[in-house]
């Protein structure tokens, strides 16, 4: 990690690690609990060094049962603590789904506003390491479906560094989707980042010809695609949704009012996904701004296969984005 004037070069993993360390330093109610977060240093080394620095009462290793420790996190949050729960990967969050959906998301409501659950649940996510069908899920749409949750997708290094702090200010449960494919990737970020917004999507690249709306691992792929499209004269705007619930439709509707074309990119399966929701909102509130039908690039509807070439073909790649945009632009 090297410092320059107002930016620094940092890996996604370091950015996550630093924001965790800072959260633990700033508030003694914060503790990190999860599978192998302590002695092992984190399944993906995100929490490396934190046990040594903060001790075992604040960096708590737990057995491999998600319903138990997520439920315990909910209880601790209800009783005045600020637990950060790490579920090793999003795939195992299904085992804690009852706790997340029936307790974290509902207690505020069922109690008529008496209780709130300021829990943070971080999950390693993403597809692309040949992990097969049970370890390659994109469950963002599942959780984005549920009122009472705040669902964040950490698609950039800036958000890896700053989203957790915003999440800690939330009185309600926050799910953070972190992307393991990005962990080693190094990027420049500002040294002095403002607290991230938990309500706004972000325009990461301005353009006038088409809006590419995406999140998660789609963000850097779309930005790279946009850079390549610029060389052939296509000026694409790229929007990182970031907050999947509550969805910020204002930002993408404003973009479409300018570009009149939209491609939505995500890893999740096409049916009943984030892109179907975004598409529906555009139909409802941005239909007359469109010059062409909304197009989507999504996960192919198959359990993710093990062979590398099939896995790669199952989710949108940079070349798919470029081809889809060209097809939409050159149609006219």
């Amino acid at each position: 990690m090297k410092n320059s004037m107002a930016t620094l070069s940092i890996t996604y993993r370091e950015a996550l690690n630093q924001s965790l360390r800072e959260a633990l330093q700033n508030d003694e109610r914060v503790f990190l609990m999860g599978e192998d977060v302590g002695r092992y240093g984190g399944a993906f080394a995100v929490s490396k060094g934190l046990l040594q620095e903060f001790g075992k009462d604040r960096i708590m290793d737990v057995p491999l049962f998600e319903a138990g420790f997520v439920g315990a996190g909910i209880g601790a949050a209800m009783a005045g603590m600020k637990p950060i729960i790490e579920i090793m990967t999003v795939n195992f969050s299904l085992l804690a789904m009852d706790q997340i959906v029936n307790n974290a998301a509902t207690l505020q409501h069922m109690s008529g506003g008496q209780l709130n659950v300021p829990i943070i649940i971080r999950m390693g996510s993403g597809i692309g390491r040949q992990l097969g069908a049970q370890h390659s899920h994109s469950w963002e749409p599942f959780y984005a479906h549920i009122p009472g949750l705040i669902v964040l997708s950490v698609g950039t290094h800036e958000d890896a560094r700053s989203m957790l702090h915003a999440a800690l200010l939330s009185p309600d449960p926050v799910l953070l989707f972190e992307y393991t494919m990005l962990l080693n990737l190094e990027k420049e970020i500002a040294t002095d980042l403002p607290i991230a917004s938990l309500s706004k999507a972000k325009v990461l690249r301005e353009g006038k010809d088409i809006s590419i709306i995406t999140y998660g691992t789609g963000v850097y792929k779309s930005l790279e695609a946009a850079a390549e499209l610029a060389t052939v004269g296509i000026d694409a705007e790229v929007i990182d949704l970031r907050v999947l619930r509550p969805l910020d439709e204002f930002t993408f509707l404003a973009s479409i009012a300018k570009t009149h074309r939209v491609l939505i990119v995500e890893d999740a399966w096409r049916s009943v996904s984030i892109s179907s929701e975004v598409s529906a909102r555009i139909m409802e509130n941005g239909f007359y701004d469109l010059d062409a039908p909304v197009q989507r690039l999504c996960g192919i509807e198959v359990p993710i296969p093990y062979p590398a070439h099939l896995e790669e073909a199952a989710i949108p790649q940079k070349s798919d984005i470029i081809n889809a945009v060209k097809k939409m632009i050159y149609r006219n």
Partner: protein
Amino acid sequence: MDAKKGLLLLYQMLLIRRFEEKAAEQYTKAKIRGFHHLYIGEEAVAAGVMQALTDDDTVLSTYREHGHALARGIDADLIMAEMYGKLEGCSRGRGGSMHLFDASKKFYGGNAVVSGNLPIAVGMALASKKQKKNNITCCFFGEDAAAKCEFYEAMNLAALWKVPVLFVCENNLYAIGNAVRYSDTATELEKKGLAYGIESSTVDGMNLIKVMHATNTAVEKMRSGGKPYLLICNTYRFRAYSMFDAELYRAKKEVEEWKRRDPIPQFEQFLLQQQWITKDEITDFESKINTKIQKALDFAEEGAREPLEQLTKFVYTEI
């Protein structure tokens, strides 16, 4: 136990019994809807356990929680209004019969997924430990929860972290219709606590004094040692599982046999023997309770329906 405490506990049990009878009646009149689970027959458990807790202790319960809520001191008015779905209810009508909450009484539901409250209880106890408080978290659940994974997870974590959760298993023998002898290989449920090194005991849940003593002993140990405890209360629900249950799975004779062990007459007999109460005073008690329940009913009837404009309130915390 002295006369004063004896009368209070009798009052609580009678209040629960009559409240539930009235609630069932209102259910048949369609004033109360949804799933509705009566506590009749199990009153000694709620009254006997709750008397051992202080205002600082925390209580989590199940969907058969009306008795727990009343014994914890939530006013009958607020509970009846909640069942009516009225704004004045203890959960502003948003919860209903299965989701009674009162944060001011540290009563945290009303959880309608079997075993769902167990890990939460462990987390609340963990928070207390971290905050260096010495309160106890008391978590009620039924015997079928003790066959679910979250029970084992909660027991393991509570023992591992050495946090004071009082696990109170109300073994009323039937999950819905499936009897514990058909659903669990270990019907002596206290053995499940021992597997985690958690001190456990079993008590006759139809006998208030026994429940009281067993809970007092458990709580005393917990306050000094800070460790979890598993208390199995063998009890029986006299009524159906819920209002939709034809009770095809158990013999009438069995129900009648259990009714002979009704905790309320048993305890009344004890109080009479001690000469802490007279038969006339019991009659007075009954009429006082009837008045209270009628008042609760009026309160619920007169309560307000939440305006439709507020439908989406309480999804996220208002800051």
